[in-house]
């Protein structure tokens, strides 16, 4: 089956609840994914991203709510769902003992390819993912980046309309991450529906057309990367006075420039970036007040700050 034969299919999640004991990992989650869309599930550890993917991949049974993948209910018709999806889990789930080539053949055969088709497809994918030279080596000898590429290749042996990528680049070096991003972009352009989870705003920004932000089992925001970034306030100015005792003075001095956030552990004051003159204005005021500055910088908001602002807004 050629790659372009698989066409995307949609996903509907309505009020899904999943509890582990007393803890609700998913507490009434609702979101939709259009056919052929790439959606990023963004959130910190424990937000429920992996649980959401596992419910959609039929690995976990929801306690309440409805989840449909490619039109099939995950509870009523799990086999039809499994035929429509590929899952690339968080830990590059491959057989370490088998070679890269054997892994791909195994997954092809498990998806009903004939022996010769599976072998042909395995060779083709090793080539495409720059693993041809390593194809005959046991996966245990692979680097982290190679494992992730093979893991992704294993999900593409027989293309399915929906692809789940659970934290596909966690633990990768920047170069391997960029390579993997390239592959995911190709898939996106090929029309697959992709749901990827990530803790990195930048990754969601790079790959996803739309982002669903999860926090403690609930959807706290949803939108295109640009929409979310503007809601999160763009860049921030961070000031650290030499004497952390004087943080409150700093806050009072800067109060009229924007909402000042204080981090007493780090000894920093943060305020939204309002323009190119902000930095010099902050330095001027602190200088006049005789407050020495250890560090001052302009930077993009961290995911934590995005979350804080998104949860405050909701």
């Amino acid at each position, binding site marked *: 089956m050629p790659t372009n034969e698989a066409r995307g299919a949609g996903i509907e999640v309505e009020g899904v609840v999943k509890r582990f004991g007393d803890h609700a990992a998913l507490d009434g989650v609702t979101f939709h994914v259009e056919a052929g869309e790439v959606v990023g599930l963004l959130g910190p550890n424990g937000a429920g991203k992996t649980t959401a993917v596992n419910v959609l991949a039929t690995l976990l049974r929801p306690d309440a709510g409805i989840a449909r993948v490619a039109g099939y209910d995950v509870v009523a018709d799990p086999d039809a769902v499994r035929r429509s*999806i590929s899952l690339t889990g*968080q830990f590059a789930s*491959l057989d370490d003992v088998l070679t890269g080539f054997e892994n791909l053949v195994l*997954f092809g055969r498990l998806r009903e390819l004939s022996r010769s088709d599976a072998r042909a497809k395995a060779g083709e994918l090793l080539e495409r993912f720059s693993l041809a030279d390593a194809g005959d080596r046991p996966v245990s000898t692979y680097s982290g980046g190679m494992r992730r590429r093979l893991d992704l290749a294993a999900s593409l042996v027989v293309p399915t309309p929906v692809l789940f990528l659970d934290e596909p680049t966690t633990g990768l070096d920047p170069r391997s991450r960029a390579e993997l991003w390239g592959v995911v972009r190709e898939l996106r352009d090929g029309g697959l529906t992709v749901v990827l989870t990530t803790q990195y705003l930048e990754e969601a920004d790079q790959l996803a057309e739309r982002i669903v932000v999860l926090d403690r089992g609930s959807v706290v925001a949803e939108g295109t990367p640009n929409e979310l970034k503007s809601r999160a306030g763009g860049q921030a100015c961070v000031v650290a006075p030499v004497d952390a005792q004087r943080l409150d003075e700093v806050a009072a001095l800067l109060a009229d420039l924007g909402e000042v956030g204080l981090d007493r552990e780090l000894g920093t004051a943060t305020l939204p970036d309002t323009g190119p003159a902000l930095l010099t204005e902050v330095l001027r005021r602190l200088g006049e007040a005789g407050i020495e500055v250890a560090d001052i910088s302009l930077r993009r908001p961290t995911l934590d700050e995005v979350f804080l602002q998104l949860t405050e807004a909701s």
Partner: protein
Amino acid sequence: MTSAFAGSALLGQRAIERSRRNPASVLGAVVFPLLFFALFNVVLRRVMDAQGFDYVQLLPPTIVVQAMLFAGMSSAYYVADDRLSGITERFASLPIGRAAPAIGRALGDLARAAVSLVVVIGVGVAAGMRFDAGLVWIPLFVLVALLFSLAVALGMGLLGLSASSPEAAVSLATIPYLPLLMLSSGFAPIENFPDWLEPIVRNQPVTVTIDALRALAGDGDISSTVPVALAWTVGLAVLFAAVGVRVIGGRR
């Protein structure tokens, strides 16, 4: 959809391939039983024969059961390894049927046990063991041994489902192994155990299986031992499988 049968067969092949490439599995299935057989034969054969036992008939069934325990124990390692590597989840997300991974695993366990069994029977026969009850009982001998190993593998698989690492699973698996084997009819006559221990030794599954295998090789009564051994092994296999299904199901 890949039929459950085809999926199970493919995963069985995979399990066999993993065992074949794992030096520890090869060592456990082939070298250890040979070593045990040779050592016991050298150390104890004269002593036991002098006491009126026919040691070359008594020893092979014990070594068979020991080898079957060993083969089954590896299952703890493989189950834990698959679970912790995440490949268990990947298999569960494939359209191959819920039971296929477990059946594939069991096929791999049985293949390991079968190789070990052939080695032990081969060396036993070479050393002078005879199937005096008749060659027709050999298939049942093989069946009892393999069912025993399957029951052990299913039980050990439960350890693999909960252990924190494959190595921890193997360590846990060795705990029941030694007492079960030593407190059996395998190495010493049951009469030699303390009175209070005797009923336990006499009726525990390892003894029951060894007795059945000895009977099938011509040393004992088949009709009173084999049904008991089959009941134990099939019963344990069903129990362990049911617990496994519940453990896995409970995680969903």
